[in-house]
């Protein structure tokens, strides 16, 4: 079933959701050369939902996640995370909010290579000066299928899939309200990717999960798929089917090819980071 929603009018009671963006714009670069990576996006992620954010390269999906998670400051608009308006929080309060109520899973460099698996899992607790109970760590590891023998290992001694499981355990150890995942299965083979997503879905258990991906198969585990194009929400699909998602992505790819918008956004993003 595909439900298309008019983007700018779909937002109702965004403040009740753990993650809500209101008229958010993010530009990279300055002056005439500035390129909007996000263009007046308004949307919310309901409590307990499991949402995939999809789009072709340069559509703004990673920027959306970064702005929603408070990792980037939007050029304009409002972001509410766990009921707090991020722009009103100091850097310190944002950091405290992230470690107490938000979890992260990235594509790579998820773990600190010098810390053991157990130490990586307990990192948010340690940062919060909370005791990291051995039992809690073992429980968190067990929820993602990691045995006690692996807790003392260093990340380099684990496979890619096992490392992502450790990252999921770390993201969930504080029982957060929201987990943000950026291409968490991008570096894994399909079989391992499916295993990791299944674990994330089961372990999240009521936590709001936002996954940025360009892999249609990820949507098998999602309640909702949000498609971005040219920095705007193109459509939202409830109960997405991978085949439908793949077709929609193909369409978006063709549109991006016609406009060149995807490449422009990439250029703009890089220009903003001083890479050209």
């Amino acid at each position, binding site marked *: 079933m595909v439900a298309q929603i008019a983007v700018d009018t779909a937002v109702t009671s965004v403040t009740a959701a753990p993650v809500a963006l209101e008229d958010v714009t993010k530009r990279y670069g300055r002056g005439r050369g500035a390129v909007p990576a996000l263009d007046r996006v308004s949307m919310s992620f309901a409590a307990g939902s499991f949402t995939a954010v999809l789009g072709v390269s340069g559509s703004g999906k990673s920027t959306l996640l970064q702005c929603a998670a408070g990792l*980037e400051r939007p050029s304009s608009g409002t972001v509410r995370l766990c009921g707090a308006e991020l722009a009103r929080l100091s*850097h310190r309060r944002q*950091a405290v909010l*992230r*470690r107490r109520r938000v979890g992260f899973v990235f594509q790579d460099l998820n773990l600190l*290579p*010098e*810390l053991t698996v157990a130490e990586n899992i307990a990192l*948010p607790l340690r940062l919060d000066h909370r005791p990291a109970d051995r039992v809690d760590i073992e429980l968190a590891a067990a929820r993602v299928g990691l045995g006690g023998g692996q807790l003392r290992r260093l990340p380099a001694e684990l496979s890619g899939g096992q490392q992502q499981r450790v990252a999921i355990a770390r993201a969930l150890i504080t029982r957060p309200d929201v987990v943000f995942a950026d291409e968490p299965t991008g570096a894994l083979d399909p079989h391992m990717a499916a295993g990791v997503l299944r674990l994330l879905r089961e372990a999240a258990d009521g936590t709001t999960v936002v996954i940025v991906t360009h892999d249609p198969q990820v949507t098998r585990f999602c309640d909702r798929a949000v498609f971005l194009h040219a920095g705007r929400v193109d459509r939202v699909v409830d109960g997405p089917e991978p085949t439908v998602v793949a077709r929609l992505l193909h369409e978006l790819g063709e549109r991006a090819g016609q406009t060149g918008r995807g490449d422009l956004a990439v250029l703009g993003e890089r220009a903003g980071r*001083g890479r050209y």
Partner: protein
Amino acid sequence: MRGWMLAGIRRGPGPLVGTVVASAVAATLSVAAISLVGAHTPAPAGRLAAASVVVAGDTSLTLTLGGGQDAQRESVPLPAYRGVPSSLDRQLAQVPGVATATGESGFAGGAVRPGDTDVVAVAAKRGVPADVLARRIRAALHGGQGYTIATGAARGYVANLNVAVERANGRALAEALIPPIVMISLFVLAATTALAVNLRRRRFALLRAVGATRGQVRRAILAELAVCGVAGGALGCLPGAALGALGAHALAAHQMLPAGSAAWLSPWLLAIACGTSAIVAALSGQIAARRAGRTSPAQALRETAAERKWPHPVRVALGLAAAGGAGTLTALTLGQKSPAGQLALAFPLLLVCMLSVALLGPVLVAFAAWLARPLRAAGGPSARLALAAISAQPRRTASAVIPVAMAVALVGSVYFANASIGRATAAQATSTMTAGHVISGANLTAATLRQVRALPGVRAAAGVAPVSVAATDPDLEQVSGEAVAGGPLGRVLDLGVTAGGLAAPRPGQIAVSVLEAGPGVLGVHTGSRVTVYLPDGTPYRATVSAIYARSLAFGDVLIPAAVAAGHTGAPPGFTQILVSGGTPAELAALIAHHPGLRVASRSVANAQSEQAAGQNSFGDDLILGVVASLAAVALVNTLVVATVERRRVLRLLGRVGATRGQAAAVFGWHALFVTVTGLAAGVGAGAVTLLTVTRAATGSWAPFIPLAPAAGLAAAVAALTAGAVMIPFRAMSRREPTLAGG
């Protein structure tokens, strides 16, 4: 969290090895300097060993300098005995508890005035402790004002006045080494730390993303650096102690410490080394830690964390401010009326110039890359790749260029300033001496001088003997000079008199060098009244009769020999008699009656003094060695870390089909760029200081830059740079199977 970060150091120390090495070198040099400052100098009591208490005229000169709240008491050890009345032994024999009191003379630096003895050796009656007897003697001498009353080991210092003087000189040299060691260590560690933090910026970004506050990241890094500092201190302690022991022997061999001196070796050195290193490392890492704390957490999400191309505007502003400061300091230095004031500003000027180069490094690199554009086409794909990488990331290349520039600026300015001053000294000695012949040897007395002057062909003859006087310039310090007799001086010496006349200083007169007379030093001009203190502490109040320019070879003050006689701790006499006129034959006939005397022509005498000056450059060489070793470690350390950081580039080159030779050429071009840019920036930063020092010390703008050492410095820098880039490259390329052979 800090505990975990520290556990991380244990498991993955790689990026911090450079910081530990730099800390270890800083600790080695600091420990060596401290062990020299605290060097133990044996002073055997000799023939005073049997005495319970030794009484002498005060063996140091103590003055209250300044006035009001700034008043400060300063003291210098005296090289000659003041002498005590020969009746003092009878007076002391009356003190209760004294068994015998005997006047003793004949010590080195002993009083030669009639009626004086050097010291009184007091033996206690049985059962009277020495310290009790010393208190009674002090009371009998009305509080002991003007006397040194010594018991135990202190008796040795009364029996050997030279020990206290040489110890003070050695300590001053070691103390002078500590500030540059600390300053340069801060520079070196700051550069190394910045790289170590930069290498792990994505990890810090990850920490920030999962909720670490800026403060937590900053404190974790500072704790990490403190641990590296402690580790470096522990590693550097033993080599430092060994270096200190060697240094003490070497200084003693050059009469800069008393013979038999031994460096202070104590378990406390370990604590001092670790503590100092930890503090220096943590201080040097403040900027890097703050920057890491501000790392955007979004960087954790990026595949290749984007690095800022240009330096932060604040850094550029600070760099420009430092450059402006260097300009102002140069103007201020040149505006100083006294050369001594100019020399005092030389080291701060060097530091500001280096700071400016360090801060503006990325801008300089970008400019150099722009200048090197023609090489892109001429040097083939490897040069194109290397220069493109440099242009794209001037900040990263600057981190390699800065230590090269620092090494060149530091070593070059210290070495060539010494060379310029040495050459000017030799030149001055040659041009100062206008006498045709020089008579030298033992027992050159006033009678000999009279006989020489009485020779028919002799137009002028002057006796000279080195003397050191204490002067408040403005601190209480020993100033070297000459005691002179005979004349007219103008016929045997050309001292470049700038004011007054220098025919023959009479008692009540003194001639002072331009260097010593300037404001901020003695601050005198002809006609001024000045008080200096003779080697036995006797004040000499005199009027400045002349001011002269050529002081490098002959010292900064000239006083009449008649005034110095009896106050120098040596029999009146001269080390040389300078003769104008006369024939070698009549001079030879004269000295035939005086065994032990020699006569030499001016050229031979000049060659001998030049050779002696060369042998006395040990102190300068020591400072240069310390500076050069720190600079070399900084250069190699930073370049190795910076090269290892480019592993991804090497991997990518291999994947796109580059041969091992092409990859080596890319790294080679990079090393060449770093060497040339670093040399140019270093020459620029060091030249300002070198010119200023040369101008102040020699009066000329032209520094003496001998070709061989200059080429040697450039070659050493090039070799170190090439080694620090290409050796890690070879190690990395061997582990890179994708690189094609050839």
